[in-house]
């Protein structure tokens, strides 16, 4: 039974802001408009039943479910409606999906007053919210039938789009009931369905967005067309921190189809009738850039990080007496791990359509953080936030890039639209997108362990160096603990291994390079460091990597179960063909635990070839099993791209890479077989979108060690000479 408080007025709701990733308990109160009351809307003379912000039932029996998470491939346009539809006993065939506008009713349940999609939280943060939304709709439809039949509500039940009388089998469809249901008061308490009664949850329901994604109909931000719309490309600074000093526009204006050349905060916009004209116009533009005050180069940054690693950082975690334990150790080992900047490189380059009018601003784009986009647009236009309308489109991938608290790609489009007064689509070329910053931070780790005579680690000292993603964003307060951005150390301060003496510290850097969350955020580097080094410890101490981990995970039954199953399914310990090695890694992120075993060989030219990955996930419970499998395949492919190839490098402030020829990503011939096993532990609901990415790099590199005898301590792997 769930307690509901649907007062008729706006109510005060306690929202626990647990950080973006849910760790501490800062509690704030904020005002939300009442999204839970009955609203009767007259549409075409018919009464729609809208019990809350997530469901609409129409007289034609259609059930429209409003999805407030952005669809970027992870399947939320199907999995979230499944939760609502199951709870309300809707007929799945009658379910339609509508994209939510940007509005307070759709704020994230754990992020405070922010609407957004991320941190692999779409299911686990909406599970209660959506079941309650579905249950309220069901309850009122049943109550409407009971009213009409003049029987007690307990005499009827909802069943696949109808309310049925238990005894005599009378039926009324949801559509027939919606007008009356809309007049009823919500109850104080609404019973939720029992898990054994689920019809959809737990089944591999087909994705609702597939048909339009196989025939070209699916509309991404780049596909949006408005009457009178222009297309703009922006000449962007060649280096981070550079600024336009002088612009010669004559050449651009000479290109047929170029309408205007306009300065915006991100560069010089060439506005034209078509992409081609805008592109030629931009090429013909002569911009003199004032150089960045302190342009950085990757090599120099690596040296600076190495120097920083010699000095103690701010302590993120300390337990026992690590220094004494290190002194007393029988064996000591240490290593340095380095990871580069990474671009998200989603298939759909960034773009944004904006239209600013006197009293409103409309934005069409694939947004992952609608509230920040709204705030930026409000700031640019001077309009109130509720006059900023975000029309969220399909995202052609994102991986965090379109969840920008600084709203870079939205802000510039709104600036331009405000000047032009006509709708404008700002298109980023692939090169713009690749060089536009907001990268996964560069990372440097120095780590040491002290082992006892039996080869068991007693001391662990880990120093992490890198930039903060949360600094200067509205999430800073929630993310920072003891002066450290949790996103810089997550997965390192809370690794699961029972080592008595530990110290983890951190140096925060700022290189003037914009950084952002990139699928799995801090875990994308900490898992590589921790899981590679644990493997080094196992080999140094003469232990099997699985056996050592199991011993150090003795107090972590979920981890042990996941690791054991992965080892078993991969045939850990059984012989492999010559030249193939096996490596294992396990990592917890976003409340889920994932273990992977990779089988790897070396090609003649020294490039690794990953043949097979066995992947085990414990995400508590599963809504749509095939989506979980798809996200494991996806997360592995994404992590493998980075492990094998991914690297953004800077040269005097300029990004060296520009497109897929010099920023290679995984292709079909690189894709391993992937075998997924799901553990339903019944633990709290975990995420799936990002959690398969962290373990793959260490699993692959640990496998490479077994065939080459060499440790890969710097990514990307590149070629290995033996």
């Amino acid at each position, binding site marked *: 039974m769930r307690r509901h408080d649907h007062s008729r007025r706006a109510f005060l709701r306690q929202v626990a802001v647990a950080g973006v990733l849910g760790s501490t308990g800062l509690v704030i109160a904020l005002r939300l408009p009442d999204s839970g009351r009955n609203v009767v809307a007259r549409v075409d003379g018919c009464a729609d039943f809208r019990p809350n912000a997530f469901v609409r039932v129409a007289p034609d029996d259609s059930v429209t479910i409003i999805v407030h998470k952005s669809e970027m491939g992870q399947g939320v346009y199907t999995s979230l409606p499944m939760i609502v539809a199951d709870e309300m006993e809707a007929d799945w065939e009658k379910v339609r999906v509508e994209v939510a506008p940007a509005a307070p009713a759709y704020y994230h349940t754990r992020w405070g007053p922010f609407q957004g999609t991320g941190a692999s939280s779409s299911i686990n943060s909406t599970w209660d919210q959506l079941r309650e939304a579905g249950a309220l709709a069901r309850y009122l439809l049943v109550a409407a039938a009971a009213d009409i039949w003049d029987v007690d509500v307990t005499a009827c039940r909802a069943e696949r789009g109808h309310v049925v009388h238990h005894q005599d089998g009378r039926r009324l469809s949801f559509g027939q009931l919606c007008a009356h249901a809309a007049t009823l008061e919500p109850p104080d308490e609404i019973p939720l369905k029992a898990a054994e009664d689920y019809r959809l949850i737990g089944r591999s329901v087909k994705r609702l*967005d*597939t048909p339009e994604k*196989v*025939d*070209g109909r699916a509309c991404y931000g*780049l596909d949006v067309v408005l009457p009178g719309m222009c297309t703009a490309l922006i000449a962007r600074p060649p280096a981070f921190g550079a600024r336009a000093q002088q612009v010669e526009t004559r*050449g651009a204006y000479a290109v047929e189809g170029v309408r205007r050349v306009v300065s915006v905060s991100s560069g010089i916009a060439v506005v034209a009738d078509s992409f081609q004209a805008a592109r030629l116009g931009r090429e013909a533009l002569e911009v003199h850039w004032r150089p960045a005050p302190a342009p950085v180069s990757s090599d120099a940054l690596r040296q600076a990080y190495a120097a920083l690693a010699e000095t103690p950082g701010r302590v993120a975690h300390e337990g026992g007496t690590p220094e004494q334990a290190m002194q007393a150790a029988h064996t000591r080992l240490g290593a340095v791990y380095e990871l580069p900047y990474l671009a998200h490189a989603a298939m*759909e380059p960034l773009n944004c359509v904006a239209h600013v009018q006197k009293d409103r601003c409309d934005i069409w784009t694939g947004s992952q953080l609608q509230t920040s986009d709204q705030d930026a647009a409000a700031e640019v236009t001077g309009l109130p936030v509720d006059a900023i309308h975000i029309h969220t489109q399909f995202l052609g991938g994102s991986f965090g890039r379109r969840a920008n608290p600084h709203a870079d790609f939205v802000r510039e489009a709104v600036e331009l639209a405000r000047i032009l007064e006509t709708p404008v689509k700002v298109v980023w070329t692939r090169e713009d997108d690749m060089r536009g910053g907001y990268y996964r931070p560069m990372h440097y780790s120095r780590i040491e362990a002290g082992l006892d005579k039996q080869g068991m680690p007693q001391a662990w000292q880990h120093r992490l160096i890198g930039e903060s993603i949360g600094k200067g964003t509205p999430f800073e307060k929630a993310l920072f603990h003891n002066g450290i951005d949790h996103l810089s150390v997550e997965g390192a301060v809370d690794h699961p291994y029972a080592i008595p003496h530990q110290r983890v510290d951190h140096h925060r850097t700022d290189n003037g390079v914009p950084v952002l969350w990139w699928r799995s955020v801090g875990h994308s580097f900490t898992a590589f460091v921790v899981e590679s080094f644990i493997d080094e410890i196992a080999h140094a101490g003469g232990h099997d990597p699985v056996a050592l981990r199991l011993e150090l995970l003795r107090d972590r039954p979920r981890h042990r179960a996941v690791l054991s199953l992965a080892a078993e399914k991969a045939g850990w310990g059984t012989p492999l063909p010559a030249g193939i090695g096996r490596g294992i890694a396990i990592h917890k992120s976003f409340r889920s635990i994932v273990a992977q075993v990779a089988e790897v060989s070396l090609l003649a030219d020294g490039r690794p070839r990953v043949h097979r990955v066995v992947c085990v996930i414990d995400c508590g419970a599963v809504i749509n099993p095939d989506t979980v499998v798809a996200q494991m395949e996806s997360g592995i492919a994404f992590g493998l791209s980075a492990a094998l190839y991914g690297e953004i490098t800077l040269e005097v402030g300029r990004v060296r890479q520009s497109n897929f020829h010099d920023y290679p990503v995984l*292709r079909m011939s690189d894709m391993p077989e992937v075998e997924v096993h799901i553990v339903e532990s019944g633990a709290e609901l975990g995420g799936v979108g990002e959690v398969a990415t962290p373990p793959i790099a260490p699993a692959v590199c640990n496998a490479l060690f077994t065939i080459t005898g060499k440790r890969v301590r710097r990514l990307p792997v590149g070629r290995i000479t033996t």
Partner: protein
Amino acid sequence: MSIGYSKRAVSLLVNGRRHSVDVDPATPLLWVMRETLGLTGTRYGCGIAQCGACTLHLDGEAVRSCVTPVSAAEGKAIVTIEGLAGDKLHPLQQAWIDLEVPQCGYCQSGQLMTAAALLAANPSPDDDEIRAAMDGNICRCGTYRRIHAAIRKVAGRSERTQ
């Protein structure tokens, strides 16, 4: 005076329909499909024939429309993702649905067009032939295994796709 840009009428046969468009003949076919004809199913991904998102058929052959000037398509039959299905879905489209291939979906038009050209030329490709044909099409969601399986499923059918 206009620089590098002069429009003329270009006649195109797209998905069985004839169009006359007034464009600079050097314009990449991709942008004529997307902007002039409104066929936005053909996607822009890289602009340099590295990712395959813009793949369409010219006289049955898979080409990268982002680097194909519209003038090169004159006199040829163009088929885009919008024209791939006949009365019913192309078997590959159906297999894509059956095996739940797409995630974000952005690259899938190009994947399907490349796969359809492959099967038209070679109805029973083996695993390596599939990989070789599809290697120019990037998917950042990593749906490669399902793409491969879907092509194999169609290639294994008794009635061949054309």
